């Protein structure tokens, strides 16, 4: 190719347009910060964070699952997760399952309860400890993720997870969701709907559970003492599954 063709200077038109774009972005961020009253913003930012601001450890996302509200036959959270993330919904050993319903039976009383089980978003995740490429990592706001760009598919994390929450993609995939890239040869698990959280929304499973009228899944910021989840955890007894491992899970259960 002719060297003269490679012109690194953006032309004048592009520059003007970019300046305009820049101006619009900045001014909208400025506007969003306008307070109409103390503690009240004119426009709500994504959970109090601007889109171009990095996540911080001031926030810790988590969910409280009320086992008494969770109905035995209901599978709405699983279906919602599959739809949101483009999973097949299959339950073969080679199919990805990010969330599954588990039935527990008390052998003494015969009492059967069911609860949703997924990545527990540990504070000290064993999957992150064992990852040889640092693909498995914990985001500052407590969400445990797999960076599939650097995952080599060794599946060490799958074995390390005490909750069997991780799946490996065995086959070539097509028609993934725009917000949820997934591909063969990488490990994946519940992302706590990170793409929705970054937009200021709640998780797909919590939304589906509320829609079904069970209200068994409460999503929120564990670090904010004023959040509904923090208040509830303070007022009622809740448990972490395998609390003996000392992982300090972000997902808590009530009534098990």
């Amino acid at each position, binding site marked *: *190719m002719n060297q003269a*063709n*490679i*012109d*690194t*200077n*953006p*032309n004048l*038109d*592009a520059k003007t*347009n*970019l300046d305009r*774009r820049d101006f619009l972005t900045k001014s909208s961020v400025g506007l969003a910060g306008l307070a109409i009253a103390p503690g009240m913003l004119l426009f709500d930012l994504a959970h109090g*964070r601007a*889109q*171009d*601001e*990095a*996540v911080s450890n001031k926030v810790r996302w988590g969910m409280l699952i009320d086992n008494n509200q969770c109905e035995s036959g209901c599978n709405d959270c699983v279906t919602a997760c599959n739809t949101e993330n483009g999973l097949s919904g299959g339950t073969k050993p080679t199919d990805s399952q990010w969330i599954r319903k588990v039935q527990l039976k008390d052998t003494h009383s015969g009492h059967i309860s069911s609860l949703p089980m997924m990545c527990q978003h540990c504070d000290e995740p064993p999957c992150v400890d064992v990852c040889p490429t640092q693909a498995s*990592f914990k*985001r*500052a*706001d407590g969400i445990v*993720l797999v*960076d*599939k*760009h650097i995952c080599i598919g060794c599946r060490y994390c799958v074995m390390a997870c005490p909750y069997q929450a991780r799946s490996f993609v065995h086959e*070539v*995939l097509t*028609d*993934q*969701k*725009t*917000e949820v*890239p*997934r*591909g*063969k040869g*990488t490990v994946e698990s519940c992302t706590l709907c*990170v793409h929705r959280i*970054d*937009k200021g929304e709640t998780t797909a499973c919590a939304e589906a559970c509320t829609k079904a009228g069970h209200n068994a899944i409460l999503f929120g910021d564990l670090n904010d003492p004023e959040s509904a989840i923090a208040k509830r955890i303070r007022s009622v007894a809740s448990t972490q599954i395998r609390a003996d491992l000392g992982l300090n899970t972000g997902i808590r259960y009530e009534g098990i």
Partner: protein
Amino acid sequence: MWIRLTAIFFSVLIASAVYAADKPQIPHLDIGKGGQCVEDPQLMRKIHMNLLKHQRDETMHKGIRGQKYSLAECVDCHASKTTNSVLGNNEAFCQGCHVYAAVKLDCFECHTSKRKVTAEASK
């Protein structure tokens, strides 16, 4: 006589080679919606991979979204209007150029190559 003929033959050959070099077989790409790109097109041809790689780490690890160099936005503008994809044939925006340059294209093993069809657009 033969020497003269051979000389003529070779000069024609060289001239045609020079002519071919002047007009390379560049790929004819379907640029989809096109329009104003986020950077100058020549710059994008050279360094789009660096821009994307930098931003992917920012988004993945720091949760910074809505920035300028987004793969989803590339697909949104450049997916073919007929196939709705940046892959599929040698005129498709990404595949066409990568086949021409003989560079392996990994992005779309995980990311979708199709434009996101919004609920409004599909009506």
